[in-house]
């Protein structure tokens, strides 16, 4: 009993923006899916199964929207599956889709993740009160600010690290035509002067609220070999992993979550990575608030605990650094929540395939895609590479 090989053979995404008033939800997912199919040199009829993911249905006000989207996604008569694992969902959805091929059930799977946040107010949709549970009433920023303060206290990181991350990601985003934010005028000072929302998170260190979708076509070894023979480099999946931990548990460390570390260890083992800092060429990680870059650098084993901020400060994570992180501009430039994880997974696959355009980094043979969700408790990661595993 072995796993079949799987590769990413098609990648598509929408133009992301605050309100995509020009398309319905169906139009949004179809825009991304059609681009992924075109990229894979396939049509709708080539697809065996569709796996769709998104965050809470309250964001759009449609219950289980995959039911009404089945037609738009060409799923008639096919299996259609809906994943929802909080903010990590874009990553988990791609992983669930890849497993359908690994298990030998299908040859070509279309996986799509989306959020059309303009349909509602995401911050408050995230803050609905649950009986007997402490009310949040502060959106994600209010929830994560204490984690960041704890990180700063423990690591003794200087104040400006978060602003450096925001500046880097926003500048990277200018090179990404699909990114929501294209802030040509951004500077360190403009970030510093932006309003403090949830101390220490400033407005300019916060992700936007976006409409957007991402789609991937995953193919079996044969499908990927055929693409390769036609000169289209597949991104081979060398490992996938998911981990979850509880919301309320006295043992948890939300600054360095054990679930994230175990997820990383699992996926590196599958990919044969022994020294993540050396063996990985680039990373797309889920950084919705600037300070999560150094926090995740540590959690994912790219830096020792307390040392991640030094990589940021030294410029290692810049587009021209020796360990580029979020070349696309990341979640800080584009955040359709349900799609954000798949965008990380897809962007790193683009780097491996050499199709990332202006934000392409030279020589990416192997990269990591990372997503997290909930209260830093749901983790999804994959390793993709130029080489067949």
């Amino acid at each position, binding site marked *: 009993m072995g796993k079949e090989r799987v590769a990413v053979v098609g990648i598509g995404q929408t133009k992301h923006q605050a309100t995509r008033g020009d398309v319905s939800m169906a139009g949004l997912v179809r825009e991304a899916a059609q681009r992924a199919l075109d990229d894979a040199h396939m049509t709708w009829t080539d697809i065996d199964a569709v796996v769709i993911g998104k965050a*809470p249905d309250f964001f759009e*006000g449609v219950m289980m929207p995959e*039911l*009404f989207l089945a037609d738009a996604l060409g799923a008639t008569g096919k299996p*259609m599956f*809906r994943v929802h694992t909080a903010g990590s969902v874009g990553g988990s959805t791609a992983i669930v889709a890849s497993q359908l091929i690994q298990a030998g*059930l299908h040859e070509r799977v279309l996986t799509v993740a989306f959020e059309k946040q303009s349909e509602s107010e995401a911050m408050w*949709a995230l803050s609905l009160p649950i009986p007997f549970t402490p009310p949040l009433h502060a959106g994600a920023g209010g929830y994560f600010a204490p984690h960041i303060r704890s990180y700063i206290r423990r690591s003794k990181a200087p104040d400006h690290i978060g602003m450096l991350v925001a500046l880097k990601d926003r500048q990277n985003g200018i090179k990404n035509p699909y990114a929501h934010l294209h802030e040509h005028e951004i500077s360190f000072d403009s970030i510093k002067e932006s309003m403090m929302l949830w101390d220490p998170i400033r407005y300019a260190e916060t992700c936007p609220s976006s409409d957007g979708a991402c789609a991937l076509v995953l193919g079996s070894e044969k499908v990927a070999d055929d693409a390769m023979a036609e000169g289209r480099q597949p991104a081979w999946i060398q490992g996938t992993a998911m*981990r979850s931990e*509880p919301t309320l548990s006295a043992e948890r460390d939300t600054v360095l979550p054990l679930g994230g570390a175990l997820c990383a260890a699992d996926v590196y083992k599958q990919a044969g990575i022994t020294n993540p800092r050396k063996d990985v060429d680039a990373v797309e990680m889920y950084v919705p608030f600037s300070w999560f870059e150094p926090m995740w650098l540590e959690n994912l084993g790219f830096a020792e605990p307390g040392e991640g901020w030094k990589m940021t400060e030294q410029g290692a994570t810049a587009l021209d650094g020796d360990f580029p992180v979020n070349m696309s501009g990341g979640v800080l430039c584009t955040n359709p929540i349900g799609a954000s994880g798949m965008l990380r997974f897809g962007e790193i696959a683009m780097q491996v395939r050499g199709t990332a355009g202006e934000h392409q980094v030279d020589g990416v043979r192997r990269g990591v895609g990372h997503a997290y969700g909930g209260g830093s408790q749901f983790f999804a990661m994959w390793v993709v590479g130029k080489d067949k595993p």
Partner: protein
Amino acid sequence: MRDIAIISFAQTPAVRRIPEVNEVEMLMPAIHGALSQVDMTIDDIGFTCSGSTDYLAGVGFSFVSTLDGVGAWPPIQESHVEMDGAWALYEAWVKLQLGELDTALVYSYAKSSPGDLPMVLTRQLDPITVAPLWPDSVSLAALQARSLLDSGNYTEAQFAEVAARSRRSALDNPNAQLAWDRSAAELLGEDYHIAPLRKSDCAPITDGAACVILAAGDVARSKVKRPAWIRGIDHRVEPIHLGLRDLTVSESTRIAGEKAGVADGPIDVAELHAPFSHQELILRDALGLSSDVNINPSGGALSANPMMTAGLIRIGEVANRISAGDVNRGVAHATSGPCLQQNLVAVLEGEA
């Protein structure tokens, strides 16, 4: 495919309304029941997968609270689908196919009681062209029933026979919500609820939860004497728009049944997820079940219909009958969406 079996199944007794406990508390007896029946704890589980919907819970990320109750420390391999638990079972079955893990815990739950269920379900419909009309789920099913009558293939009397037989079968099911012994003729004397459906043609509204444990090969054999092996499982979807489908047949069920291998051997029992009596008739035809197949001995969804869970219960009910040695080969079916839009079919079998 790798041999995967259902080794344990537990459900909460179906009731109209469970106001005194929250969803997590409602679910816990099902999970711990399933685990204790096979002398396992959460630490023995390789993969956990659940099915639920935020729209019934009334909060975003509602599954996150249940995960806390299940116990996810140290961190676990886990996933969640916004679908009936039968699809969570499908994901777990796929995960076990990869050969790295041997056990999986699958659970699902929903409380329909806090809201007006037929109205809540209108939120599943196309938000631009259909949902603004608020067509409730019973009225949509009635349209389907009407087209089935118009086809000339079935009569209201046959609907009533399904309704009567289901509730009579439920008398033997301690977890059922609706169980009584009344004749089909008596049911036909009822007024229409939404014509041509009578109240007795419709599933009750239920709060409830269920849990299934899956195990691979020898692990399954070491835990129970007679595992219920999953010989085939498949699911298919159709467009949501009623105008794009022939409502008198279920093409997605037919394809799923074919892929799952329903016709590859004799079927002793079938648990069909039909929340309306006429849908059982459509499903029987789609699966090609002969008249001697024992359909819904549990009483089916007409006797207990916890949302997101009634499909998983169908699988568990067939598994229980196989493990008890009562039958050898059975079909379980789950549905989702208006008028049987999406369907899953599993074929279960005892050891040859």
